[in-house]
């Protein structure tokens, strides 16, 4: 029982990082219709930045917050490069983000080398249902809950959130009303960058990060987001948690080697089910 509780809570913790990465993808896609393949890089860049800031003497909390802010700024720059030129299609922007993700590898290796890095998280451990769990996992869960709730409130309750949704729903009408489609897109990229950065900052104390850790994060984040059709943050959270828990159980009871494969099979299954549904709809029409 203790072992199961341990796997469940660590799974939820890691799932939160996937959900944050996936939510960043969702925020960007909802507003710009661009699938941002550089999303994992925000997490890696923020995590590695924290290691430098801590080494430079900044206290915990401030270093993490600053790194998330920097990730948001990087998101803004990625958005500007990918979508700043008028008339850029979402497909072209997707390829640009892919290129920027590869460029990020070079910059990260140049700045931090190719060895995995980590830093200390919240110290101590607690016992939950007989299982020993690092306290840091509870921090990951708590922060994710607050941030994703705030993101959901932003979209559901504020005029800014409505304007972000409106921009995606009808860019022409948004422009007619004086809503800057470019600014909304850049804001979404900045928010996506910050969410990705937060994922990296939160997960690094329990999982070392290196320049290529973005692949696992973006594959899992994308798998989580695709459950919500890349547009629904609530389902992205569910997808992230599901992936995290299943991977923790697979890793715990079978082998950690299969964890990424679980994400890929999950994503494949969702895509097949969705494609099947579309066939049904089209056949009915």
């Amino acid at each position, binding site marked *: 029982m203790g072992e199961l509780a341990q796997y469940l809570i660590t799974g939820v913790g890691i799932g939160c990082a996937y959900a944050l990465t996936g939510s960043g993808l969702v925020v960007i896609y909802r507003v710009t219709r661009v699938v941002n393949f550089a999303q994992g890089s925000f997490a890696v860049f923020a995590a590695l930045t924290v290691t430098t800031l801590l080494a430079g003497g900044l206290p915990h909390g401030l270093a993490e917050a600053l790194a998330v802010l920097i990730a948001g700024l990087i998101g803004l720059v990625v958005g500007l490069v990918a979508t700043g030129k008028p008339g850029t299609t979402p497909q072209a922007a997707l390829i640009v983000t892919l290129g920027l993700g590869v460029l990020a590898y070079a910059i990260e290796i140049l700045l931090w080398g190719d060895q995995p890095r980590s830093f200390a998280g919240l110290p101590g451990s607690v016992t939950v249902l007989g299982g020993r769990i690092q306290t840091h996992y509870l921090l990951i869960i708590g922060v994710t809950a607050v941030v994703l709730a705030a993101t959901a409130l932003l979209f559901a309750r504020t*005029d800014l959130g*409505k*304007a972000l*949704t*409106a921009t995606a*729903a*009808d860019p*022409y*009408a*948004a*422009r*007619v*009303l*004086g*809503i800057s489609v470019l600014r909304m897109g850049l804001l979404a990229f900045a928010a996506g960058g910050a969410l990705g950065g937060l994922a990296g900052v939160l997960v690094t104390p329990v999982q070392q990060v290196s320049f290529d850790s973005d692949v696992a994060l973006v594959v899992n984040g994308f798998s989580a987001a695709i459950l919500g059709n890349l547009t629904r943050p609530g389902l992205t959270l569910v997808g992230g948690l599901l992936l995290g828990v299943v991977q923790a159980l697979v890793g715990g009871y079978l082998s950690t080697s299969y964890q990424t494969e679980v994400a890929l099979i999950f994503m494949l299954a969702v895509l097949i089910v969705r494609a099947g549904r579309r066939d049904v709809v089209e056949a009915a029409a």
Partner: protein
Amino acid sequence: MIRVDRLTVRYGAATALDGVSLSVAAGEMVALIGPNGAGKSTLVNTLCGLRKPAAGTFAVDGKLALVPEGRHLFAPLTVDDNLRLGAWRSGSRDTAHIYALLPELTKLRKRQAGKLSGGEQQMVALGRALMSRPDVLVIDEMSLGLAPRVVAGLAGHLRERNAADGLAVLLIEQNARLALDLCDNAYVLEAGRIVAEGPSAELAGSAEVAAAYLGLEA
């Protein structure tokens, strides 16, 4: 309110508007009629600053709002959200005055805009445009796809706003009978050029306009 002077707009090599001049005075209702592809929507987009002219000038005194062709509501958002975004540029986003002007919308305020009927959507589009308390309203194809009863209701609302607040209106319509009945003056746009203009009653009496747009024998 609106003064357009020898305006030319091009899409690459194609000329959509070729030296168009027209004016809409304060408190005036003006119709712009013409067939598909005449350049009516290009003029709308230029007036809204979405397209740059190749030559000529235009000036808008006061606040301009647009009801675009096809409504262009934000389908996933509620009626109330759509209305509030109509005042995105202004400070106050209080929707109370729109529900007072268009009481039909009150019962729809929490409904998703994409799930409304065509007439209801056009009413929301009108309300959204009025949210910014404009001095001049441009309406692109108000009657498109709507039942005559619905169109009559919308036209009634426009007349009321024009009479009560002095709202100037530029009504861009393929339904020439509606446009000429509703507006004091009118212009006829064909292939990017103004080919006729004057008081609506005079234009309706012109044999060419009657034959081309009102379905009457020349």
